[in-house]
């Protein structure tokens, strides 16, 4: 059995619209009216509905991630720790930068204050110079006075150096004498310890210590 309107493209289109739920009310009516009288089209439409159900069985495979992690996978806790460390580092960096900026700003302020002071004192000097210009004779007298003062200061400094040297030398001699006495006392103590020994060894030890004593006294 075949439909009389098998070549009617409009009807075929309407049937597809009905099959896929895109038909408006007019198309629905047209198709409905035709299906009432055409068994072949009813059968075909039912078969196409069945076919669509079969087509639905071809499903997509489960999507694989585009970038599959291979090898070592960073655990969540490690990633979190790294993030915390990163945040702390960033905070430290920012605070360091801010404190550095503050320090630089205060230093700049100090430098600018100093510069202002120097400019002010230079201004004062220039003003005083403008008020009373220095003559050539005054300058010579000033230089002479400066040189005399310099000689005097040099002599005083040399004298102080000599006195300091003498004091150091005397102190050194005193310390050497004390050291010598301590050494002698130790030698005497050693001799008294060796005094308890006997025979030739004692004699030799005494002789030896005598040499030591002599050598020590020569110093």
């Amino acid at each position, binding site marked *: 059995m075949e439909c009389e309107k098998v070549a009617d*493209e409009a009807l*075929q*289109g309407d049937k*597809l*619209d009905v099959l*896929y739920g*895109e038909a408006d009310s007019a198309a629905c009516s047209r198709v409905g009216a035709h299906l009432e009288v055409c068994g072949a089209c009813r059968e075909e439409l*039912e*078969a*196409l*509905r*069945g*076919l*669509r*159900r*079969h*087509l*639905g*069985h*071809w*499903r*997509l*495979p489960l*999507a*694989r991630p*585009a970038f599959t992690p291979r090898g070592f996978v960073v655990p969540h806790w490690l990633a979190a720790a790294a993030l915390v460390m990163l945040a702390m580092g960033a905070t430290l960096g920012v605070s360091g930068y801010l404190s550095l900026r503050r320090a630089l700003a205060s230093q700049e302020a100090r430098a600018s204050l100093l510069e202002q002071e120097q400019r002010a004192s230079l201004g004062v000097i220039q003003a005083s110079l403008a008020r009373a210009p220095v003559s050539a004779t005054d300058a010579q007298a000033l230089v002479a006075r400066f040189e005399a003062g310099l000689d005097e200061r040099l002599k005083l400094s040399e004298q102080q150096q000599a006195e300091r040297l003498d004091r150091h030398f005397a102190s050194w001699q005193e310390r050497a004498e004390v050291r010598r006495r301590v050494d002698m006392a130790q030698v005497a103590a050693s001799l008294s310890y060796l005094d308890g020994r006997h025979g030739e060894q004692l004699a030799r030890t005494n002789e030896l210590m005598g040499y030591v004593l002599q050598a020590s006294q020569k110093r």
Partner: protein
Amino acid sequence: MLVGRWEDRIRGAAYRFLGSEDEARDVAQEAFLKAYRGLSGFKQEARFSSWLYQIATNLCRDRLRRRKTRPQVSLEALEETGPVIVEMRPGAHERLLERDLAAAVRRAIHALPEEQREVVILKEYQDLTFLEIAQTLDVPISTVKTRLYRGLVQLRLRLETEGVRGSAGVAVPAR
């Protein structure tokens, strides 16, 4: 965000056109790259989805054309024809039947002429309207409907040849 929204759909369409998951992913990426580069050429009167599908369809056509000169077998096709280890758990038989039916549908769709296959995939699996398919393929709506009708008739005949009959339940396809 736009990529995330459309990637699955484009990849799905490409998978059904080409039958290879890896190639489908490549096509999806390539399509987005092309769309990004050609955004200035996008006509506002067309829907963005149609434009994107158009790019992806053209990429798939290129790949299919290249395949004709260098035939290749996808892993998915090999898996389907390979031996099946039947697990005798509850429902295993039904799953096996379903798997066979899916394979039969897949074979039938891939046996369609390219023009019909495109329309069937875009309509059945991408759920595009006739107007959107017409915009995507740059053909009149009547042409879309004609191709779809012919494609459905072909599919019905082919599935019946494979032993898939009627609309009730899951039929056992003959291999």
